[in-house]
């Protein structure tokens, strides 16, 4: 074959060096080591990873508790202004505390225990855990979104990477994104262009620092956690706006302007909807609000009055708008604005926006769960668990059946699923309709709800006939909806082959 002559200069062979080369090399090594195992036991690895994470977190929690008990039981006065080294507990005391509770290998464990008494160390550990969690959420939400979208559209979604239903597709995408070229368009405001993804990403992480996963499962138990999280969601928008502006692209500016005006207007009904649980409980602390809903299904704030029911709905709609999720995904609508504010982004910076978006989706779902849907409590009343005692197995049963982060995460994931479901079902609305829906519909409606709820709280005695009646009716409606949903999902799952055809599943690997 003769060499074709081309009018442009042929490019040299691509060389990957620096961080990209390191990442690529690392990925190749990891792949070479783990790929055979992953191929052999994909499902088992995934399940054991989930289970192992739970066990690790549980062990972590127990460790902290042991130290706390030791600290309280310690006979020493806690000296003020202790430095970074030389804390209240010594290794010896830790060892004796461990021996007291009969832990095995106390001589070894005490060295592990020692650093945990310092707040800084605990914070670092917890922050690491939260960062890990935030990294996992987008990975699996994106994979799950693709699977759900596939099912909705009568196809399978990712099936290849990782073996079992393409479960490591997002990780492969992540490695690809990190290795991609980091483009900065000519004429862009370089510093701002590079800063913007972080301005979107960091607030999303910070919001998690105040979001409780359980009564004690919170990084910082802020008295004003709700306001803080709302503020973080608001600041995330700044990153988006600056990204759009700094890209030197008109479509990006359009995306940024849409995002700004959408966010600024929907924050108002959203904030007002959040006022309703605050009125019910009388605090801004998310932990306290969550803990008032421990009495099972009927005690969830959403079923408390017709107004809370409506407010939960309004909040959910507004939260869709504030997360730029369909049908409110105007800032990044590809059929109008190419890709909106992140048109010019590529590689890692682009993925930061996605991390921020999915993290924000989880945060707004978490807020809804905490404020309206019984926080980390199961539909069973916590009172039933009183007889179980405080032994370790009893705690495990309690954590799984009655209250615990598992319930919180499960509820959030369900709400995430609803967001995904809506996205792949509904068309996108227009900017004037977005603003009309907010200012002319949601806002007056929310004002009425707020007013109505104020009078409801003032005039209807808690536990009275009217209150109980409404509570029961609404709880029944909720239960019927939930059971109906579960029924439909089960029916669809059972009849999936008949409903969408065999989807070529036999032909794909890992089926």
């Amino acid at each position: 074959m003769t060499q074709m002559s081309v009018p442009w200069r042929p490019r040299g062979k691509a060389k990957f060096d620096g961080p990209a080369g390191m990442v690529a090399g690392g990925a190749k090594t990891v792949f070479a080591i783990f790929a055979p195992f992953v191929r052999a036991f994909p499902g088992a690895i995934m399940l054991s990873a989930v289970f192992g994470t739970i066990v690790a977190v549980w062990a972590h929690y127990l460790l902290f508790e042991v130290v706390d008990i030791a600290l309280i039981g310690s006979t020493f006065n806690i000296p003020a202004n202790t430095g970074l080294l030389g804390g209240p507990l010594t290794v010896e005391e830790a060892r004796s505390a461990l021996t007291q509770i009969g832990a095995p290998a106390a001589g070894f464990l005490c060295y592990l225990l020692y650093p945990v008494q310092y707040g800084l160390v605990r914070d670092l550990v917890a922050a690491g855990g939260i960062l890990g969690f935030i990294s996992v959420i987008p990975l699996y939400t994106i994979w799950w979104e693709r699977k759900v979208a596939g099912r909705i559209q009568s196809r399978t979604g990712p099936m290849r990477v990782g073996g079992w239903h393409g479960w490591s597709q997002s990780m492969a995408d992540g490695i690809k994104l990190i290795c991609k070229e980091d483009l900065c368009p000519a004429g862009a405001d370089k510093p701002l262009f590079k800063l913007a993804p972080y301005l979107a990403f960091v607030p999303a992480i910070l919001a998690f620092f105040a979001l409780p996963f359980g009564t004690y499962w919170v990084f910082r138990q802020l008295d004003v956690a709700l306001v803080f999280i709302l503020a973080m969601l608001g600041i995330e928008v700044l990153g988006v706006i600056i990204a759009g502006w700094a890209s030197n692209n008109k479509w990006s500016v359009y995306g940024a302007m849409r995002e700004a005006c959408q966010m600024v207007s929907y924050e108002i009904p959203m904030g007002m909807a959040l006022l309703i649980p605050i009125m019910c409980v009388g605090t801004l602390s998310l932990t306290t609000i969550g803990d008032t809903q421990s009495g099972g299904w009927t005690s969830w704030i959403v079923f408390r009055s017709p107004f809370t029911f409506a407010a939960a709905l309004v909040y959910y709609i507004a939260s869709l708008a504030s997360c730029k999720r369909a049908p409110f995904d105007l800032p990044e609508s590809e059929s109008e604005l190419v890709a909106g504010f992140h048109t010019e982004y590529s590689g890692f910076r682009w993925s930061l926006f996605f991390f921020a978006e999915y993290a924000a989706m989880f945060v707004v779902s978490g807020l809804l769960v905490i404020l309206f849907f019984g926080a980390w409590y199961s539909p069973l009343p916590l009172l039933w668990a009183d007889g179980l005692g405080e032994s370790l197995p009893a705690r495990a049963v309690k954590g799984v059946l009655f209250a615990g982060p598992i319930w919180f995460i499960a509820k959030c994931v369900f709400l995430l699923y609803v967001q995904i479901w809506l996205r792949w079902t509904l068309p996108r609305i227009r900017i004037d309709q977005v603003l009309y829906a907010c200012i002319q519909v949601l806002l007056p409606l929310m004002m009425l709800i707020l007013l109505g709820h104020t009078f409801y709280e003032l005039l209807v005695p808690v536990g009275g006939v009217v209150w109980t009646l409404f509570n029961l009716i609404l709880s029944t409606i909720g239960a019927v909806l939930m059971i109906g949903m579960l029924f439909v999902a089960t029916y669809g799952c059972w009849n999936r082959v008949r409903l969408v055809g065999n989807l070529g599943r036999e032909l794909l690997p890992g089926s």
Partner: protein
Amino acid sequence: MADTLLESQPDLMLDIDKSEQGDVRTEEMLVNMGPQHPATHGVLRVVLRTDGELVLEAVPHIGYLHRCAEKIGENLQPYQYIPYTDRMDYLAGMNNNQAFAIAIERLAGIEVPERAKYIRVIFAELNRIASHLVALGTYGLDMGAFTPFLYMFREREMILDLFESTCGARLTYSYINVGGVHDDFPDRFLDVLEEFLDYFEPKIEEYNQLLSYNHIFVKRTANVGVISPDDAVRWALTGPVLRGSGINWDLRKSTPYEIYDRFDFDIPIGLPGGSERIPRSVVVGDCWNRYFVRLVEMEQSCRIIRQAMKQIPEGKILANKLKNLKLPNDEVYVEIENPRGQLGFYIRGDGSAIPSRVKARGPSFCNISVLNHIGKGCLLADIPAIVGSIDIVMGECDR
């Protein structure tokens, strides 16, 4: 408002001092939509003059897919040119082949066998369905609804399978040839086709539930990009765009070509809101009506195919004496009803085997020229809605 030509502005930032409308002064911006834009269905470029989200002017620029189709036609014999025609409107290759074949047959006085005529009708109507499925699916995509797109492509795949079983190609068929068609149906084809129609007709109702009557979709398309009947005719809009404006004009009915006069079918036209099957907020000539006309046309195409399947005779599929075809020193202008509108071929012969002039009148070319007329004063998000409802294929627009 200054009526300056957009091209004459070297800088994309216009500096037009608007009359004082209030204390808050906003500025106009020129935005280039396309040629690489997800919503322009190919390489259409629309230069938008916008005031915030408001579009003041939407000037379409075409020519990015110009492939000298007419010049090529002046250098090739008709049967050689057939493959070029289905690369014009690549979503409706059968109809394009048919238009060119009919034009040459009229010019050279070729009589097509009966069976070939029926095969042509069946495939033209099947291709109309396939083309409308793409149009409707991508229209949903333009509105942000991803799922109907894949549903419609699922059904289109089946039609393409039918085509492939007969002519071996899935997109550029070159199947309908001068004097007839290239191949006869394979065995059991009509049974499979019947099976497909039985499967497909209920699906249209599914599309209605998914997309047509979706509240958001109706909100996005009803009363958007309204073309009055008078305007539609003056701008020579054809096809579903013309019928969406309430004009009962379909070449298959009004000037029947081939054997369309033997079938019983209806011409769907745009109807005012509140009529049967029409949501209340819809007006005649808006995007929703254009969309819905296509949807109903698919039903009617199914009817035509069913009738043609019953009537189809046995026999030859290609006319005799096609070798050394000489075109007389004469000219014809033939229009047929393409899925997108009236596709016309002007052909001039000069006594040789090669036509001296081939001119194609593409429906997309004429239909998209109205964009600036109806795109003034709408919102930015309405431009994809209008472009999508006009349903252009740039290959045929630019030729």
